[in-house]
């Protein structure tokens, strides 16, 4: 019967073999700066992208992403692989973002939506469809507007729903991995993702059904 320590070593070996990023992180543990730079290079856009959706502010997202990398670097000497590197990275990201969001919430700062006017104008789907399908410059504009609509929709999800959704959709994480990252049960993840999908469906219904860009309501706190 293997002891806990032996199990830990086996697990570490397994992740070292399976995950190239774990191997990079082990080099970082041995003070290899180039390996760390490679990890920063590899994950920067994914990390900043997720954080931007979480805090709805690019500058803050970049600062927080640097904070995440700094924490990883500081923890390098204690690093033992017990999961995929990305799981560990996004666990730290989740913690950093949660702290930032709770600070913001304590300051009672309302997270305003992206439209400067507070609401996006409604536009008929046929206009959008025309722009989308035709080979014309406006297509790019329409796509930008759709992206803006989606960002606004995401901003209306609760913090945890948003995090779970981002990890599932953009990081392709399984429920188990999301559960590890967010320190939840798989059942809780299942429930969070289900509510996130339902909420998105409700918000985007005017667009899906009638081609009308939904009005954006001020984002609500955790749902």
């Amino acid at each position: 019967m293997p002891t806990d320590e032996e199990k830990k070593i086996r697990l570490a070996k397994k992740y070292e073999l399976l995950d190239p990023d774990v191997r990079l992180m082990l080099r970082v543990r041995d003070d290899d700066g180039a390996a760390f730079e490679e990890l920063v290079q590899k994950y920067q856009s994914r990390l900043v992208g997720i954080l931007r959706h979480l805090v709805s502010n690019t500058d803050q997202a970049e600062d927080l992403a640097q904070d995440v990398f700094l924490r990883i670097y500081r923890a390098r000497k204690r690093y033992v692989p017990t999961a995929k590197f990305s799981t560990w990275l996004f666990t730290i990201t989740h913690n950093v973002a949660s702290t930032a969001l709770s600070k913001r919430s304590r300051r009672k700062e309302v997270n305003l939506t992206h439209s400067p006017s507070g609401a996006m104008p409604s536009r008929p789907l046929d206009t959008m469809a025309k722009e989308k399908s035709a080979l014309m410059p406006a297509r790019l504009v329409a796509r930008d507007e759709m992206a803006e609509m989606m960002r606004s929709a995401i901003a209306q999800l609760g913090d945890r729903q948003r995090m779970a959704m981002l990890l599932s959709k953009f990081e392709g994480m399984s429920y188990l991995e999301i559960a590890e990252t967010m320190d939840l049960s798989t059942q809780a993840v299942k429930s969070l993702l289900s509510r996130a999908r339902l909420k998105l469906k409700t918000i985007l219904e005017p667009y899906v059904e009638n081609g009308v860009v939904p009005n954006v309501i001020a984002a609500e706190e955790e749902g």
Partner: protein
Amino acid sequence: MSEEETQALISEELTAYLDGELAGAELASVERRLQEDPSYLAQMQQLQCSWDLLDVLPPTPNYDAFVKTTMELVVQDSDRELKKRLWMGRGLLTKLLMFLLLPGAAFASSYAMTNQRITAPYRKLIRELPLIENHDRYAKLNLQIDFLQKLNEAALFTRDVVLSFSADSSELMPDLDEKNEEFLSIETIKDRESRLKAMQPQQVQALKRNQEKFDQLPEQRKQEIANFHLQLLVRDNKNELATTMAVYYDWLKSLGETERTEVLDEVDIETRIEMIAAKIDQQNLEKFGKAGATMLPGGDAEPFFKWYGWFLKHHKPKILKTARELYVDVYRKQSGGKTPSANRIKQFQKSSLSQKVGFLFQYDPNQMRELMGESEVNRLRKQLSLLAIEILDSYQSQEQQKALIISWIDAANQAKLNIAPEHLRDFYNSLPKTRHDALDSLSPSDWKNALKQLYRKKRLNPK
């Protein structure tokens, strides 16, 4: 079970199905119902449709600047970590001294990322600030860290000794590397922001010009410059290297266009350093004749330098000891009886031998005279031309002859030293208006040479 609860359960089931999290009996059950129940299928399609719309979001682009600043933060953090460890390992008295002597004692305060937020317009400028400020210096090193290291080891460049002692100032012996500390210290983003805000209009203009030049560089070149900057930052002797780099950069300006290109284009590092050494020797010889009234024939400059090199080597231990004792004495006198801290003494000891000799000359030239015995005078006599020996012999007593040799040594020392720009500027400011008028009518290069000459003469004959 309420309608709402039922809906929630259905949604969970369909979400898990869409996310590929179902298997076995659960999966079979959902698939069967999807075939049999059109409303169930419609719900699934609606859930998936809004999910698919997320694909419209563009990916976040990669920014080189992000990687650069993150790496800088990490290096900075390592630096602090190291200092903190050193701090933890020290005794109470040393801690107190460290705290007093290191006004920046940043490592003693907590590191807060949130304090480093800045607004968008300056973001790029702040991120690239050290690169914008230094890219030209780095380029003059051909972006070769090995070259800089070897240039430093060759000890070809020395700064003028710091002479400004003021009893009122807490900085009785300013850091010789102070100027270079500015661009090689690893700053936080907030530090950079403050530095930018504190800049004078002409500094901002200079920075803008540098930024324009930097912005025109190809991305690959920018990356190479950033890599060089990082390599420099992680060196233990980075401040020493920065001093060498700054003096080398100033020295290159003293060369003509052809000579400068010749140095910069030399591919082999060793050959380039030899070339630099030869040019410096030549310049020293030229400067020697101009450095005060040496009365030494031009052709004797080279043998004199050889003798002087031997003299320094031969008396090195004595010079080091005497200079150290004199430094403590001067410090005490200037500060009303205070003893310099171990750190200050250490800093003084780090200065070069030539700088220490300069210090001795400034505060007690007799100490050098006492080092010179009859054998030293005779050794020199053997190397000089007949004309030079005649000049020497025109002085009757040995003490007078020694005084003449001392003035030659001082001239040689002055010729070897590069004058720090800030000292030259202070010296210029201290000159009377008539001198200003005479100097200001010269061309910029003649102006600088004439000012240096005047500075050296003044140093040789202060009265």
